[in-house]
């Protein structure tokens, strides 16, 4: 982490560059289950993720603090927040989680970013084909 003030001409104009200073990383994940009718509550999901952390990274992993910021039970989509130092551990244990209550499952990580704002404006989600446009061809 470095913080260098590039210039400070007056009290009015100030510019600060923060490099690698983001304290958290944010992940947008979606759980895919073999049996699509299964539903998990938020608490169950968090426990499930902790199980994965514990099996891959042991007690150190299980103690890794992370937050379930938002969770949609219908789509099994969740937003996670984790300290930047724990990102690789959390992500890898999500990747290697392969079964939930003896049914196959997989976490699809949709986006990872050091800024929560970036998760709300991902241009890869831009869909232009579904109607809503006055289309013509020539």
């Amino acid at each position: 982490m470095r913080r260098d003030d590039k210039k400070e001409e007056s009290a009015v104009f100030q510019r600060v560059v923060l490099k690698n200073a983001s304290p958290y990383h944010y992940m947008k994940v979606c759980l895919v289950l073999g049996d699509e009718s299964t539903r998990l509550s938020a608490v169950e999901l968090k426990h499930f993720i902790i199980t994965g952390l514990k099996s891959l990274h042991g007690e150190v992993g299980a103690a890794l603090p992370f937050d379930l910021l938002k969770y949609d039970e219908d789509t099994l989509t969740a937003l996670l927040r984790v300290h930047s130092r724990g990102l690789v551990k959390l992500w890898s244990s999500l990747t290697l989680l392969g079964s939930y209550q003896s049914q196959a499952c997989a976490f699809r990580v949709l986006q990872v970013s050091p800024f929560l704002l970036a998760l709300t404006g991902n241009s890869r989600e831009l869909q232009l084909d579904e109607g809503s446009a006055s289309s013509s061809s020539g």
Partner: protein
Amino acid sequence: MSVFMDLNLCSSADRSGLRSLIETAAHLGFSTVAINYVLEPTAKKKPEIPTPTPISDLMDGLPIVQGRSRPIRVLNRLTVVMSDASHFRLNAAEYRHFDLLAVQPTTEKLFHAACLLYDVDIICISLTEKLPFFFKRAPVNGAVDRGVVFEVSYSAAIRDSTLRRYTFTNAFSLMDTCKGKNVILSSAAEKALELRGPYDVTNLGLLFGLSNGDAKEAISSTCRSVLLHAETRKTASGVIYTMKSSSESSCQERAPPECEAPAAKRAKPT
């Protein structure tokens, strides 16, 4: 960087399973996949070299890669599990049906030979058991110089905790030896839920001891050089490419789309 590839999807007799594997891979953002046929000769019996199922038989239209407007590209690959030098026949005509050729040596001697002599594209390391040998720098460097790559598959690590430990151990010692060069990461998935997205695989690469950049190359650029290496195997040093004119139509299909490119340029690995 080039497109993301997963050069190991397990073939199976179950066609709908294979179809859903390819569909999932396309959905996850892989632009090229290879269906892997495993040949495991033993001392007693020598099984026939399988012929790959044409993709057109498998599915009507190829699925579109997510977020792109082009369909996925499907290749065929043969993996020969070797416990004896006689199991790998040099220049066997049957091998020519496959786009990619891989060997999985099980003894140190064969590993040495595979690295330095055999005309193959990929050397698989069995990651699910304790390795019967150590990786030595000399053969590994030889393989790196020849453009042969090593493959690490992750789906065993999803299935079982013991297999996971072996995968990590073996992958880590491999990376220690080859320093992250010429390594590809692939799934070896049998079921669609064993596949993981490209960025997930990259992150997993960090646990195998790869750096961020190396891990991303392991599923893109290095895979591309494998494909080019495979093409040079079929051609005379990548300069001349022969096609049988009788079966022109079938060959044309398999020939890469950008055939007009100067062959020498395209064939250079890396």
